[in-house]
């Protein structure tokens, strides 16, 4: 039972539980009456304790036991919900995470697991004594009766229910274990024995499913059990008994009313029945237990919603879809294969179109459709809701705000927005940077905010939404915004800007995104060392993303991140310049227009073309890429749009849309800012994928200041100090 795979399963499950603990704890607010969140927390810790003990992780079990005791106190109303309590729960969660990491690392050493696990030294206080002490303190503050309990470590869930005050109740439990339960290492008899510790019970085995001897498989479990149990423990406690076997097993727990059922022949019943009948009858015995754990101890607590109460969910919604955990490397392999398939398909289509064989057209078209569907489905598997990283961010805001003595509300929306896992994995760090900046530089201390006539608590809004084939994430705070004058002074001080340079406010704000820049007056723990926003920008560039910043001094800053849905396969527009072909990501293309030779000469210091009344600057790719041959009479301009910026790319011909499997150009071309990757075309040639953001940056067109002559495109030099206005 303690073999590798099952402890791995436990660790994965524990991870989920810790995440849910964190979420739930962060949702608590001080002074809140005892309700479902507390129960959820209790159950999560309880599960951790039980499975921890089962896998021999004594330290995990012992530690969770203490937390559980405290939470039990909360459930019973002896310990109030305070900020201190919430912090303690969070710290306990962190400590558990560290404990689990150490439990994982020997495994990681045995098998080649991701190095991040084994490589990072885990900073664990050896036994989490200070947290434990704090837990005890909080508990004993209000109830000295809990002494000593924390030191004992018992088998899971035997003692807990006994402590729960509540009225006696009869339950009918039907348990039909999964056939393979014995092979999985569980022992139904032990479960039934554990059930007996909850109270007197009568167990009847149902043998109807046992087959004839010749069909009987010795290692299958054919039995089911009907149990009538009289207990004062709640349905949670009963459910907990079966917690490790409920997957695949059939389990129903029905309260049949207060314990005076005449049908119950149990010899122990009379005394219990007397005790029970002394209590007022339960309000709705059929559907609800009305939270027996809290009813006596905490009368003002609201009863649990009746619909939920009959069998509270311990881990996940009962009707969840079956899901499979698959290592992401397998998905990556699958995506790689689909990429090759798409490539071959486009070659096949091209050959079939040229071959002129009538019988070939229909099957190739059909194959085309199937491949496209397969591609969408496989890329869909890797899509994950962005909400999976919101929890971590919420925690960050909570911790940092406390550390900096600021009061901040974190409001997230669009958790369901889905992104490719590879994009998502790389999005966490930039978001952390941005939030740190907002909290440290943006939101003012409460006293200042009050003086400025703002609400005492600052707010950070995090929103995610789809637009076309991109995901837009905005982070908006209502802090002090970015003061252009301060940025300017700082940029001059840092040598990033010539003192005589005249810059627009927009330019100045963009300076914030450059390396080595920080306007924080003092270096704090959190930020101000001049790293941050440029890192964010670089990380987003690597993701083919785009970062825009707007700020209103005194009112706050908004950062807008535009990210591609996926990094693997995109729709592209194939264009040709001379003999070279390029792909423009379709997501940024808005239209194509013609550029005649006479229009080309009509420039006065800048190149722009009127598109539906707007002047759009354009870049001749032939010039930008120094291609040798001469331009044709009539050129095409592909108009691209990226955030606020629009730019036209002048090409010879537009060849149509192509499925584009993106390949990285690797380290030798990582400084090339104008292309972001390569793809193999149907005819086997390699086409480069244009980095429109890079092109826009390199051409740096600013409408309000036409005094600057158009420049030829230099190779991007990201670290040189800024002395002119190009960014």
């Amino acid at each position, binding site marked *: 039972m303690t073999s590798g795979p099952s402890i791995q399963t436990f660790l994965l499950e524990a991870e989920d539980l810790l995440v849910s603990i964190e979420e739930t704890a962060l949702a608590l607010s001080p002074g809140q009456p005892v309700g479902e969140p507390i129960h959820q927390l209790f159950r999560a810790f309880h599960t951790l304790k039980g499975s921890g003990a089962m896998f021999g992780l004594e330290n995990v079990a012992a530690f969770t036991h203490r937390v559980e005791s405290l939470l039990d106190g909360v459930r019973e109303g002896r310990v109030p919900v305070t900020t201190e309590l919430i912090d303690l729960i969070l710290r306990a969660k962190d400590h558990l995470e560290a404990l689990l990491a150490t439990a994982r690392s020997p495994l990681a050493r045995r098998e080649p697991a991701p190095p991040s696990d084994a490589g990072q030294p885990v900073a664990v206080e050896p036994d989490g004594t200070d947290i434990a002490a704090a837990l005890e303190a909080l508990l004993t503050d209000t109830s000295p009766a809990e002494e000593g309990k924390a030191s004992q470590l018992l088998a899971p869930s035997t003692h807990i229910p006994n402590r729960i005050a509540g009225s006696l109740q009869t339950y009918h439990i039907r348990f039909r274990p999964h056939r393979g339960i014995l092979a999985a290492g569980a022992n139904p008899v032990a479960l039934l024995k554990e059930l007996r510790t909850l109270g007197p019970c009568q167990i009847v085995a149902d043998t109807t499913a046992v087959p004839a001897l010749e069909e009987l498989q010795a290692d299958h479990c054919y039995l089911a059990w009907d149990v009538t149990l009289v207990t004062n423990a709640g349905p949670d406690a009963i459910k907990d008994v079966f917690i490790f076997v409920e997957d695949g097993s059939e389990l129903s727990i029905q309260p049949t009313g207060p314990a005076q059922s005449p049908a119950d022949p149990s010899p122990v019943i009379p005394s219990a029945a007397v005790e029970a009948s002394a209590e007022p009858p339960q309000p709705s015995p059929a559907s609800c237990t009305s939270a027996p754990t809290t009813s006596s101890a905490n009368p003002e607590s609201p009863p649990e919603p009746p619909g939920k109460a009959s069998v509270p969910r311990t881990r996940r919604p009962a009707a969840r879809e079956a899901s499979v955990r698959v290592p992401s490397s397998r998905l990556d392999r699958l995506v790689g294969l689909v990429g*090759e398939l798409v*490539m071959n398909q486009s070659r096949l289509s091209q050959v079939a179109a040229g071959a002129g064989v009538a019988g070939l057209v229909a099957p190739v078209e059909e194959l085309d459709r199937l491949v496209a569907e397969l591609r969408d489905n496989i890329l869909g598997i890797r899509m994950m809701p962005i909400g999976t990283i919101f929890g971590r961010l919420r925690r960050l805001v909570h911790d940092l705000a406390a550390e900096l003595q600021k009061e901040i509300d974190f409001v997230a929306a669009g958790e369901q927005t889905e992104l490719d896992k590879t994009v998502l994995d790389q999005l966490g760090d930039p978001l952390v940077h941005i939030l740190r900046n907002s909290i440290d530089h943006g939101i003012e201390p409460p006293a200042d905010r009050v003086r400025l006539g703002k609400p005492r608590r600052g707010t950070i809004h995090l929103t995610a939404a789809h637009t076309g084939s991109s995901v837009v994430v905005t982070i908006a705070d209502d802090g002090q915004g970015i003061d252009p004058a301060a940025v300017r002074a700082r940029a001059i001080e840092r040598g990033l800007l010539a003192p005589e340079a005249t810059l627009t406010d927009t330019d100045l704000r963009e300076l914030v995104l450059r390396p080595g820049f920080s306007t924080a007056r003092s270096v704090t723990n959190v930020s101000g060392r001049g790293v941050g926003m440029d890192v964010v920008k670089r990380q987003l560039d690597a993701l083919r993303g785009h970062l825009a910043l707007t700020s209103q001094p005194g009112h706050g800053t908004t950062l807008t991140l535009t990210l591609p849905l996926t990094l693997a396969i995109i729709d592209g527009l194939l264009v040709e310049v001379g003999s*070279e072909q390029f792909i423009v990501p379709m997501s940024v293309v808005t239209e194509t227009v013609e550029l005649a030779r006479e229009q080309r000469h009509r420039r006065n210091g800048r190149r722009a073309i009127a598109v539906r009344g707007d002047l759009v600057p354009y870049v001749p790719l032939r010039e*930008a*890429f*120094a291609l040798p041959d001469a331009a044709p009479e009539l050129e095409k301009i592909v108009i691209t749009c990226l955030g606020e910026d629009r730019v036209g790319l002048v090409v010879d011909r537009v060849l149509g849309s192509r499925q584009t499997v993106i*390949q990285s*150009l*690797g*380290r*030798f*071309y990582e*400084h*090339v*800012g*104008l*292309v972001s990757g*390569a*793809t*193999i075309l149907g005819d*086997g*040639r*390699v*086409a*480069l994928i244009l980095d429109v953001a890079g092109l826009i940056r390199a051409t740096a067109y600013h409408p309000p200041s036409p005094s600057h002559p158009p420049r030829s*495109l230099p*190779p*991007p030099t990201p670290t040189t100090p800024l002395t002119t206005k190009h960014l």
Partner: protein
Amino acid sequence: MNTLLTDIGQYITFRLGDELFAINVAQVREVLELPPVTKVPTAPDYMRGVVNVRGKAIPVVDLRRKFGLPPTPDTVHSRIVVMELDLDGEPTVIGGIADSVHEVIELEPGQINPPPRIALRWRTDLIQGMGRRGDDFIIILDLARVFSAEDAALVKEPSALATVPA
């Protein structure tokens, strides 16, 4: 000087100008005729572009330019040597264009001398050793160093055609 040289090794020889070079076969994946190369704009001169090697876009280095030799037009003998190198712990596939590729030879450790320190046109830190074959000397390259170095001009005297650092 290097553990690789303590055993009998197999080397692929290729020519740049009139000089014969060798690379350990363990670092060579295949040798291909020169396919159409897609140029990458604004990349350094010695980075010729990318080619399609069985569905993968592989960067291609013009070894002549990389080593600071005068460029010549490609010929029918020009080949791409596709190499698999471990650069800073990162497995990297890269193609190198050679004037011609010759044969696989075996060299015993005794046939390999450390690079002479004096009177050499070549930068010794990019050379693993000098293989002796009859009266000929073959330059055995330390490829990981060659491709990690920003400026890998092998020829010491500055030349107008030396590589331009990125």
